[in-house]
């Protein structure tokens, strides 16, 4: 599945992705972003700047938001990773309350930044489920949006905070 020339080192890694156990051999030079998209087919995590400035590739690793473009595959061995694909409950025909709030507040225009914005929002709620506007802005400072001007996104996070329950967040840390 993974294209690779023989001289490049690969490494056996085990990790949880969206609650599912994975056991894979991965090229050590691949970033988590490339591995998610090109090896596993999880293309919800977006590739923007690839230098850690835009936040489009934000995923949650062990409860913390990180840039998937700045992690190499060996560094996720043993990690618990959540991406946008795992946010809505598996099998349920329903979006997660954070996703609903983004829709209702028109927080997605082109939508490219939305997966990263939503993952950062989850990480914020894991720390603080009742943030004020300053805390929302600080938590999303590493996620750029070139469409909305951020107002609708901050509205969405505020709205999501008013609706979210512990149940909606539990899986992201377990």
């Amino acid at each position, binding site marked *: 599945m993974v294209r690779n020339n023989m001289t490049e080192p690969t490494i056996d890694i085990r990790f949880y992705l969206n609650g599912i156990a994975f056991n894979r051999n991965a090229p050590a*030079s691949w970033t988590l972003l490339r591995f998610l998209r090109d090896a596993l087919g999880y293309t919800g995590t977006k590739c923007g700047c690839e230098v850690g*400035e835009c936040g489009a590739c*934000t995923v949650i690793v062990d409860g913390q938001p990180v840039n998937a*473009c700045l992690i190499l595959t060996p*560094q996720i061995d043993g990690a618990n990773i959540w991406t946008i694909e795992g946010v809505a409950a598996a099998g349920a025909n329903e979006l997660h309350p954070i996703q609903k709030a983004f829709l209702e507040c028109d927080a997605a225009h082109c939508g490219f930044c939305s997966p990263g914005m939503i993952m950062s929002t989850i990480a914020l709620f894991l720390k603080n489920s009742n943030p004020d506007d300053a805390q929302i802005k600080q938590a999303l400072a590493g996620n750029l949006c070139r469409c909305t001007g951020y107002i609708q996104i901050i509205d969405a996070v505020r709205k999501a905070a008013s609706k979210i329950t512990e149940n909606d967040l539990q899986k992201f840390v377990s």
Partner: protein
Amino acid sequence: MIALSAYRQPDMLNEALEILSSGDFAPIAGGTDLIPQLRCGQQRKLLDISRLGLSFIKKDDNFIEIGAACTHSRLSSDDLIKEKLPLLFRATGLVGSWQIRNRGTVGGNIINASPCADSVPALLNYDAELVLLSQKGRRAVKLNEFTLGPYKTQIKPDELLYSIRCKKQSTPSGCSYLKLGRRQAVNISRMTLAATIAKDKNDVITNATIAGGSIFPAPSRMPEIEKMLNRQKVSYELFEDAANLAADLMIKESGVRWSTPYKKPVLIGLVQRALCEASGINAS
């Protein structure tokens, strides 16, 4: 595209030092500076130091010792750092974004040796000393001698930065950390200033420390200013003189550059503001 010819991830320090002894491995911790550099570089061999237990924060009677792999998030949320090394607490909380702070480490900030490394001016105020390990043994280097210039340090290819040791402050002091940038977050610092001032009951300065980033080729202390401040009574006029001296020092060390017409008045303003804040007087 990143090209690697080897990736090692040892569990034991001895093994890590043995791998480094070949001289052609680069240690990787958080990777937030290194991975973008790898994208436009030559094929490399990496030594992952994340399993060596280097994310500790320890204290004894005289020192606080910080493991090189402590992340900025860890340092900017730790109570001991907040109480004993408040400049570092503040500096690490201002690095990049939340995502970057979760991965980037203080050791990486020092080794990358960017002139605008946020943690370095803070650590310089605390006379930080670096513990470097290799198969040949251990050596301690003062941080103010370690950085030689932009992106250049005196670390040898077989050495690993193990920890950073900061002297505990003997007398209570006020402090100020100012970071200047083009925006409020996810900011590459245009200039940073970190200062501490201890004073007696008559408002006479007993110990002043001041260090800056992106002022000189490497972040550094300004002993000339400290000398000017020590044993003087706190006053706005004194800080004005100190700020003008800082500008003279910058031009002497870094020369007149394209950015000087901007940086000179800004540096003067920042030094005044930092010294006022650290000594608890009104800046206006």
